[in-house]
């Protein structure tokens, strides 16, 4: 059986909107019928715009929220029914929540977690040595958590989530607030644990570099629906059909008028011309431009994941209308 198995998963929240007498009950379908499975040993990126339902899904997978419908199994357990058994096998980190003890030195928080998770002393020491080296915790292990910088604290939080050697890690925006170097360190640690121990990771992030570097597979969620499930390359092919030809003209010109393409930006003599793969190609476009104005130089930009995701978010890959209904 797959390590994570999700079928037709749903979560509705009843919220009260408005004020005074005009308050009404509104049902928000945060997760609206999602199905996927994750095999052991993969790193999966879970992306989608704000409010898409990413955190809500993670909360149902980790036993925090009881689903409104559908089925979930993680590591063979039903999260909402076998919460404590599951908890011993998973690691969870929410980039915005503090799980360390605020006024204790980092090392003491780890020590308490060791007892909470019942990790044998020897294993704990080995794991802490490994994690501490990978995330360079040494300099602030004895500092009270409240005195740590955000980046230091997040490295501590990640360590806390991994000390008991979970089979699967759920990371909800783990690199929020980290500098470039720390981000890189976190990524390396995850890749290494994945390689050496077969650690499975489900990661939500708005940082697409995280996704690009780490994830072999991507799930895209929008308005509670899964709109894409597959590899990064296919994602780019499917949604990233628009490429950009950057041309340097001999002198500044008003936006060129070329068939099957449009100018998206002008900066002095430089113009950015976006085109669809199906409608024209770079060779034909170059010839057209050269016929209109003398050319000095040109480059071709392939779509990057940011463009792809921006496009999916903006268009909302399915034509999803009204997910809320008044009850």
């Amino acid at each position: 059986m797959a390590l994570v198995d999700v079928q037709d998963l749903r979560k509705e929240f009843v919220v009260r909107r408005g004020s005074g007498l005009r308050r009404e009950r509104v049902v928000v379908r945060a997760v609206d019928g999602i199905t996927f499975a994750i095999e052991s040993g993969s790193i999966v990126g879970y992306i989608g715009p704000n409010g898409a339902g990413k955190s809500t899904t993670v909360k149902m997978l980790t036993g925090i929220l009881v689903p409104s419908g559908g089925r979930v199994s993680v590591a063979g357990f039903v999260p909402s029914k076998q919460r404590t058994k599951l908890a011993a096998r998973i690691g969870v980190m929410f980039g915005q929540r503090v799980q360390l003890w605020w006024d204790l030195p980092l090392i003491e928080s780890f020590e308490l977690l060791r007892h909470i998770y019942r990790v044998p002393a020897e294993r704990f020491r080995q794991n802490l040595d490994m994690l501490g080296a990978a995330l360079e915790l040494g300099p602030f292990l004895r500092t009270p958590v409240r005195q740590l910088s955000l980046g230091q604290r997040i490295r501590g939080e990640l360590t806390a989530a991994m000390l008991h050697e979970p089979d699967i890690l759920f990371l909800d925006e783990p690199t929020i607030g980290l500098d470039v170097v720390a981000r890189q360190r976190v990524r390396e640690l995850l890749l290494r644990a994945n390689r050496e121990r077969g650690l499975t990771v489900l990661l939500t992030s708005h940082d697409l570099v995280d996704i690009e570097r780490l994830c072999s597979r991507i799930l895209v969620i929008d308005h509670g629906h899964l709109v894409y499930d597959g590899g990064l390359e296919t994602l780019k092919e499917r949604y990233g059909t628009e490429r950009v030809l950057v041309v340097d003209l001999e002198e500044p010109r008003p936006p060129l008028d070329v068939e099957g393409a449009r100018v998206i930006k002008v900066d002095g003599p430089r113009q950015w011309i976006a085109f669809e793969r199906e409608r024209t190609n770079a060779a034909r476009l170059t010839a057209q431009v050269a016929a209109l104005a003398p050319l000095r130089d040109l480059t071709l930009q392939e779509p990057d994941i940011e463009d792809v995701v921006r496009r999916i978010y903006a268009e909302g890959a399915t034509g999803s209308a009204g997910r809320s209904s008044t009850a």
Partner: protein
Amino acid sequence: MGEPLESAGLFLRLSAARIRAQLQYRTSFALQTVGMFLISFLDFAAILVIFANVPQLGGWSVSEVALLYAISSLAFSLTDLAIGHLDYLPQLIRDGSFDLLLVRPRGTLFQVVTQDFQIRRIGKVAQSLMVLGYALATLDVIWTPDRVALLIATIPAGALIFASIWVAAICIVFWTTEGNEAANAVTYGGTFFAQYPINIYDRWLRRFLAYLIPTAFVAYFPCLYILGKADPLGLPVWLQVSSPLVALAAALAAGLIWRTAVRHYQSAGG
């Protein structure tokens, strides 16, 4: 079987960690403990003032009232010491930090109460013990084994009754606290809890409900038995020794309510 013992060990370990953290602020900690100790004498002083004018009250002497007071106050202050942090449950729920307790392999109630340990509450325990000492020293009671046993059993039973009522009552926040009204807004990177004032469940109302009503089982009935007094209401004698059983039943019920309530937890956006 080692399970409860291991949990007790963890309770002590977590509490010790909290005490260490509080000792960082040594002076304020000492002042608060002494303050708590002194303030709690005011309760008892009020009783003494009454007895300065009348030798007996409803057929009870000052030593007998002291016993009644000491038993219920000791039970209550032990409960307050052990699970007082339950007061912060509404806040944990509102800001969604209850999430973190659910992903750890331990009971949620256990984790809520071990999040903090206010050692200054020992001041009240100490005061109750002193009043108990005064009562035992001045009472004119023949200490038969059954009376001794009931006195010893009554205190933990009373603490358990208070704790059960407290837990059951506070569970309402799982229904009334609307996850996070701000969850409708964009949740990315938001830390909404800073906007909420710390809303401690009204301590006085809670005390009244959780303190007065069960005091009958916690202290009054056992005192009737220990002091060999006739029950003015003429209730059966077995009621007077039933507090340990009542405590067990209350604890089971509270546990059940808690489990049901946790399944209604809605978390907060994020």
